[in-house]
């Protein structure tokens, strides 16, 4: 029997569920953090186990955060909260949230940014984007991730550079493209890039808007988001 209730807004139901799940996952990750702190160091199989749990947990969290944000943006419930941000501090926060996990796999995370660099953007949105990309690096990086920021051509460019094997050709083609061409059915990376693109485009100044780009540079992949 079909559900013919009029005015039944399923997307609102989904949004509420996502919100709920997001909170649960945050609690999960928090509990996991505690376990890791309390467990004896240096037991390889256990460490491996924890690593995988954290990685997956963060993936789920990142996706839920993005879905919720997308829902809000698409339903006009969200206006970017653009404020003056201490960029170095923002990148440090990202580093704090990810270094531990990356270290478990022997990957170093560095931040390179002028401490006097201030720019205008929606801190929580940009942090979501960067966090999600850095978390992805967990799978693809060999030993080193560098997050850097500088001004180019009147834009703030934040780069996430890993030393893995770089992006596959199709991704390089499609990145930064119109949302309609991004294939979201393939993997979560699709959602991540779609989200990043939308967030970048939400940032405008004097007729210019933000964008993202992917490239394979200096042995490794580089994700770049530019904000006017």
């Amino acid at each position, binding site marked *: 029997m079909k559900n013919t209730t009029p005015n039944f807004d399923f997307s609102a139901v989904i949004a509420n569920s996502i919100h709920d799940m997001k*909170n649960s996952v*945050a*609690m999960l990750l*928090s509990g996991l953090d505690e376990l890791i702190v309390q467990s004896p160091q240096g037991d390889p199989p256990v460490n491996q186990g924890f690593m995988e749990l954290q990685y997956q947990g963060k993936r789920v969290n990142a996706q839920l*955060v993005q879905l*919720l*944000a997308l829902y*809000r943006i698409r339903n*006009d419930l*969200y*206006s*970017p*909260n*653009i404020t*003056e941000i*201490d960029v170095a*501090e923002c990148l*440090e*926060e990202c580093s*704090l*949230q990810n270094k531990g996990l990356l270290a478990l796999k022997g990957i170093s995370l560095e931040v390179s940014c002028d401490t*006097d660099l*201030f720019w*205008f953007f*929606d801190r*929580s*949105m940009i942090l*979501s984007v960067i966090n999600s990309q850095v978390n992805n690096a967990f799978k693809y990086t060999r030993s080193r991730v560098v997050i850097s920021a500088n001004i180019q051509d009147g834009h703030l460019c934040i780069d996430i550079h890993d030393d893995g094997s770089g992006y596959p050709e199709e991704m390089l083609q499609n990145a930064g493209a119109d949302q309609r061409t991004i294939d979201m059915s393939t993997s979560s990376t699709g959602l991540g890039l779609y989200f990043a693109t939308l967030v970048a485009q939400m940032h*405008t*100044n*004097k007729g210019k808007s933000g964008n993202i780009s992917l490239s394979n540079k200096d042995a490794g992949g580089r994700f770049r988001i530019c904000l006017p």
Partner: protein
Amino acid sequence: MAIWSLKDEKFLVIDDFSEMRAMMRTMLMSYGAQDIHLARNGEDALKILENNQFSIILCDYNLGDGKDGQQVLEEARYRGLLSASLIYIMVTAENTAHMVMGALENQPSSYLSKPINRTVLQARLDSLLKKRARLHNLNQLINKKQYQQAIAACDKEMAESPRYRFELLKLRTELLMELDDYPAVADQAQQVLDERDIPWAFYYKGKASLMLQDYEKAKEIFTQLIETQGNYIVAYDGLAEAEKGLGNNDAAQAVLLQALERSPKSVLRQRNLAETSERIGDYQTSEKARRQAIKVGRKSVLKAPGDYAGLAKALVKNDKSSEALQIASSVQKEFNDSAEAELVGAITTSQVYQSMGKEAESEAALKKSTELLEQFPGGAPRNLSLDVAEACMEHGQVDEAKELIRQVVTEQHNDQSVLARVGEIFKEAGLEEQGRSFIETTREGIIKINNRGVKMASEGDVAGSIVLFDEALLNMPKNTDININAAFAFLKSMQQNGVEQGLLEKTKRCLAVVRQAGDHKAKYQKMMELSQGMEASLTT
């Protein structure tokens, strides 16, 4: 590396969940914090703030029923309970930004999202403490309300380092607003906008236009701001003011209704809606709005007897006279028998009886009002004097009304809204022409005295001007023009003849009157500085 410690900070943690309060306290203590107060809701927090100074406040946005975190911040600021250097961290359940609901000058220092990650908390506090250290001098000047010097301090900071540049520019703009220097505000905002499309710059540009009464421009700016940044609720308030300035009260009402849909918990906005609705005769809406203003304002410092009077008025118009009477008689108690509440209660009661056709009861209440007015400690507020004057007119007591009006006009001879209202009162009583000439004569008298006094002082007869102003001050002690010009004369005399304690005291009293009214801000600042300098020279 030095151990990072919070031991010298004084914390207030506000959260409606005891587990959260406990968790925050544990986290803070793990970083060395020793002085931590806890509060479970806005009302408790404000009570604690009345008697304690804090350096850092962590407040959950959502505090159950009653005030939310933003409202706590606003009320505490409004009541002067917070230092300019206070760090206020709003803890939110969402990690997406929410609406910029409060006044732009009252934003939290930072937002943190739940669940709170201890390393993020540490990093954030570290950053905020560094900023506080950096802006210490500037904040001290702001605390002392030395706005000119604070602006100079801003400029110095910006010259020394690019850090916090736009935040300093915003602060500078707000300081110019405090000084009522609207052309400078507009210029400053435009300079910022030439660099970047920043919402707050648009907002202040709009505000400056409003204050300079360029309502078309203000309307344009605020409309654009709402379109591009729909979460700036104050932009709606600005647009409503612009519409009102253009005489479009219906449009203003519509804008306020939109804003209230998104942000209903604002006493001032509800009140604004009520007043605007009254102006267009929509008493249904004004009744609802007044009820909301009363409800939201119940435990707020923004609570005002006027909302009860307004509700009673709307109820009368909506044929609910008996409830109106109840409201009128409840005002006094709602405000702990304050003189103002008692007076408002009496006037409102008189008006309600009048509308019910009960002449005798109405006159009795009016008589009580007039008595209360005469006995009002420190002199009655002018709007209440005019309310009584209006009621007297309605009862045919023209001479009594005129005397009250004369007193008000004498104190506020340049205030357009006062003069407009007075004009209305005479018009309602069918005495439009008489009213006009009465106002003119009264005003002329004061303007003459002022001009003469200023002329005397600048032409060298300082002693003569002092005699003139001394007498004027006896007759119209609250007139800000007289007070500021008297202060000028006193200061001039002391510059010529040396500082003298008696004159200095008189100067300070005059300046206090001007400060209280918020008029002549730039002149006030200059004279205040002169006066303080003279005071210092007496003690050295």
